[in-house]
């Protein structure tokens, strides 16, 4: 099932932790808090890897009023959720954490969506299949074939 390389490379204890889904949120904010989403976007967008909290803080400060400690705790949380990796680096300012994304944006989205979907399927398997099929524009026969296919796959997965 795990097709993505990034996901395959993730060890058991570093499983991506996206435990919430926010229906109101737009794009990444569906999975992450607004600030978390901002930070992740900033890190993915930045050319520099790894990057320090201060650098992200200085980047975000350009567009919004934000406190350093807030950014720090946000990145700490993202690390705990395994969206970010970090290590201690020795440099001019002494010892400090440097962060880099554990996943590329694409693979994160893929993993997160799949996690939500598989949770939905686990709970409401048939309904999900029906909904998915209804959402797509197919004629009656194709829908029927697809539904059977989906149900078969789901049953196989449950076994």
């Amino acid at each position, binding site marked *: 099932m795990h097709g993505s390389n990034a996901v395959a490379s993730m060890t058991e204890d570093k499983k991506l932790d996206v435990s919430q889904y926010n229906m109101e949120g737009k794009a990444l904010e569906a999975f992450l808090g607004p600030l978390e989403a901002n930070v992740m976007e900033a890190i993915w967008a930045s050319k520099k890897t790894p990057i*320090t909290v*201060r650098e992200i803080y200085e980047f975000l400060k350009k567009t919004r009023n934000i406190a350093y400690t807030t950014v720090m705790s946000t990145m700490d949380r993202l690390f705990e959720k395994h969206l970010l990796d970090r290590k201690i680096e020795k440099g*001019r*300012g*002494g010892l400090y*954490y440097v962060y880099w994304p554990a996943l590329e944006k694409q693979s994160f989205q893929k993993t997160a969506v799949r996690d939500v979907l598989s949770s939905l399927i686990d709970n409401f398997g048939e309904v999900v299949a029906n909904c998915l099929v209804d959402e797509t524009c197919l004629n009656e026969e194709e829908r029927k074939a697809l539904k059977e296919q989906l149900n078969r796959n789901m049953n196989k997965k449950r076994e």
Partner: protein
Amino acid sequence: MNFEGIFNQIFQPYFYYSLIFPVISFLCIKVLGRVCNFMGPKTRSLLYLVPLAAPLVVMLIFMPSTIIQTTSTQIKAVTISAGGPINGFFFSPFMPSRLQPGMFISAGQAPTALILTVTQTITTSVTGIICIIGLAAGAFFASSMILADDRIARRVLHVILLSPDEHGWLQTKILDACKNLAIASPKVGVVEDLRPNAFTIGYGRRATIVFSIGLLNALDKEELAAVAYHELGHVKNRDFFYKTLASALTIVSFFNPIAYIASSNVQREREMLADQRAIELLESPTVFGNALAKICRAIQNLPKESLLVSFSSNLIVTSSVLHGLSILSTHPRLDKRLRNISGPKATYHLNRRNVILFSVVILFLVLSSTAVSYAMVNLQNGFTSSQQVKAPSMNLVGAYAIVGPTGLSSFDSVTIPFGLPQNMNAPVYQTCRPIIVRGLLFTNNESSFIPPQDPAYGSTLLLAQNVRFR
């Protein structure tokens, strides 16, 4: 470079006095500190500035010079034509060693004249240039620190200023303490460093107290406040200026190892003083002691800080507590600090035994230092007076000694540095110290002799006239 060259380099007055005076005054103060227990950290920190400031005082007397002037002489004995007058003179900064018996004319030779080539060389004074570089760098450092320390340090160390609502309780504590101390409240910042650390940059209204993330994580609120008080103590005690002054003066005498030791001593005493301030602001000294102990423990698990950080950040609260080289560390040892803050407030008193001991030590140091300087001056001038030189075996009617103190530019005394024949008129001996014989003038024909002016310097030559040689 030959021996003479090295000798000339080292004995540039500014250079060697600015080496010796700091050493002597530092030793004096060190001994004083050991012997007398009536000095507090404040007095000691001021005293330790003396060895650092000594080179500046020396500079007022001897300006460092970029050149060394030396004259050298080549002596050649030549036969003179019959009846002709001979006039001549020679220079030498190292006369005594060259005025060997029989040096002028060997016995049994026909009357000869001396042909002397005097060459004056101007060499670059490496030590002088080193001193000038030090002075310039020190002045540059001091002025840039005073003008823009806060901006430089914030940039170099990547300090992030906190907004008023971040760590609000700590900022409130700092504000309250500032009211107590009657100082302008400093800004508060953080650095990303994971090692527990705090320091102050800038001074007065521009002062910024900086905590490391490591410190904010390692200590509880009360302990953080204690560390903040320590830093406020630095602000109140104006330690920025002590630190800047000590560092700038160390740069001035960067070639002198004692300067580094004296400078770190100044800073250690200021730390002690700031510790005492912190204790005054705290309800119990144990909190600050705990904080220090915690910081030490936390640092033990982390690599040591880079040189650049310890240089560029001012008054770091902990940095060097664990450094092996305690003589150069800017922070006192932990046990000393704990004793300083936990013991009853020390009283510094003066008793008779101490005063006598103090006087003896000072007397000894002053005498020995005078002896050292005297020896060095004489070493430079050579030991002029005792050389016996056999007179030339010709009828010279005038012997002129160009003499002067250490510098070639002034001539103020006269002596004839060689043994005189018995049957001649007693010469005028005027001796005064220090004396260096710079040259001799001689002639065999008084009527044709015109006492020459010093060609190189144009100053009047003092002379002993009518000195007759066999």
